[in-house]
């Protein structure tokens, strides 16, 4: 399979008041076209930092990041990001928040009616047609997160980067959206990188689970191949030995090998 993103020996050092802080070090990862990757690790280890690097929002201080064989010089609409804190613009309605993205990506070549249709479709996809005219402060946290997902999906990105997109949701909504997401990703054949700290979510949604060691100077500790056939049924999976095995492997990494010492 084609490698869409290549991360070679990447490190990230932040300049802080107390001198340089090495967040990431020696990261090596190839992401294949169409695959789904879950990034997992303890809080503060550098998951968001790595995702921002792939997005192009920050540049690595060492190493090389390639997308389609070219250096990642900055962000772009083909790499849509669902931000950890939804980042909706508070002065725009849900519709306008999504429309801003649709207009940017398709505005040059499509008519007004088509753009409107795209915006409405994206909101319908996350079940928020009724909230089109509402402002972000008028909807719940989970709904905001769903608008953020709709905004990213509406751009029909080649790579979907998501930073704990379901972190703020209740278990029920979370499960529904996870299933919805899997369907969309399968239909659009998008490549997906999702940051999570939920072990079940990581195993359920991904082809590979990339596990980061604790910071500072975090790096990739282990990569687990999830050999579960798709489509995956969350109820049937509970009985599946492979699922239990994957789950145990991730849990073992997080809670035995990388046990976070109480600060």
């Amino acid at each position: 399979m084609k490698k869409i993103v290549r991360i070679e020996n990447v490190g990230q050092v932040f300049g802080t008041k107390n001198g340089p802080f090495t967040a990431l070090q020696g990261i090596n990862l190839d992401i294949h076209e169409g695959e789904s990757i879950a990034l997992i690790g303890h809080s503060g280890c550098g998951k968001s930092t790595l995702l921002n690097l792939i997005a192009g929002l920050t540049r690595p201080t060492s190493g090389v990041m390639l997308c389609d064989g070219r250096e990642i010089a900055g962000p772009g609409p083909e790499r849509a990001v669902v931000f950890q804190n939804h980042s909706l613009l508070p002065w725009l309605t849900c519709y306008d928040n999504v429309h801003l993205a649709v207009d940017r990506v398709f505005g040059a070549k499509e008519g007004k009616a088509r753009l409107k249709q795209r915006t409405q479709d994206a909101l319908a996809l996350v079940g928020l047609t009724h909230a089109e005219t509402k402002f972000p402060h008028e909807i719940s946290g989970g709904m905001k997160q769903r608008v953020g997902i709709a905004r990213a999906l509406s751009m029909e990105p080649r790579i979907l980067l998501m930073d704990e997109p379901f972190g703020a949701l209740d278990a029920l909504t979370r499960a529904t959206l996870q299933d919805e997401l899997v369907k969309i990703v399968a239909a659009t054949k998008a490549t997906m990188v999702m940051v999570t700290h939920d072990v079940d979510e990581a195993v359920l949604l991904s082809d590979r689970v990339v596990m980061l060691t604790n910071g500072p100077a975090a790096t990739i500790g282990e990569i687990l191949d999830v050999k579960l056939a798709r489509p995956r049924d969350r109820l049937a999976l509970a009985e599946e030995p492979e699922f239990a095995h994957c789950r145990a492997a991730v849990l073992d990494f997080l809670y035995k090998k990388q046990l976070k010492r109480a600060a």
Partner: protein
Amino acid sequence: MSATATMGVAPAPAADESDAKVVDLKAARPAAGKGETVRSAAARARHGAGAALRGWLRALAGAVLPPLAGLALLVGLWHLATMNGGGIPSPGKTWDAAVTIFADPFYQAGPNDQGIGWNVLASLQRVAVGFGIAALVGIPAGFLLGRFAVLSQMMNPIISLLRPVSPLAWLPIGLLVFQRADPAATWTIFICSIWPMILNTAQGVTRVPQDYLNVARVLNLSEWKVFTKILFPAVLPYMLTGIRLSIGTAWLVIVAAEMLTGGVGIGFWVWDEWNNLKVEHIIIAIFVIGIVGLVLEQALMLVARRFNYENR
């Protein structure tokens, strides 16, 4: 998706629920006369309306009574202080003078003898012009200073040096440059209004959340879209704070400036009445100046609240 679909739906209003109960009652007790149910429902409605009215009155009293008591205390003290005569007129005398003044606030008897209404309007006009020009210059300047660190490093020492200077110190410069009193007064307003506008706008620009700018970067928005969709709305609340602060000082300064420049205006009117030894008129002017300032401030607060997205 059914679970998520219901999530966004607002909870059924309480009215529906009580309606349902009435229906239930009727269904459960067919033996009871229909008239009885209707009567008791009407009584309940009347009782509800009465309680609502009483609650509303209590809220109103809570909001209005304490300020009224404060005002009464002030007038009472004023009355006590002026009981034994002296230069300060009593509340009663001032009230009588006010009634005469406000009977015809817009009379015109020559350039230096006009009603209090004209004087207030003249001052407001100066404030509006000086303030408007300050906004036209200060807000774009603030955007530039906020966006380009070099500019802000260049300008900050100058601004820090000039800002604490009383705007009245600039009056002679205005007189020198414009050769007339009226634009010189407007000039002082311009000077005192511009600092809060520059500084608050610049601060707003530097405080635009990085998240919003990241959205712009991921979408690769054009500079114009970044400005209209992200920068401007994000900075607007800060800008309005600057505007509110400067209109407050502008209104403070105009009174003093007009005392020095003369002409028509509430400041000059105060000075004129002092020369005529009509102290009750000065007290009336103090109240008028206070009320106009309060109205300006409250109006801008209302506008600011409309555009505050974060705390809604």
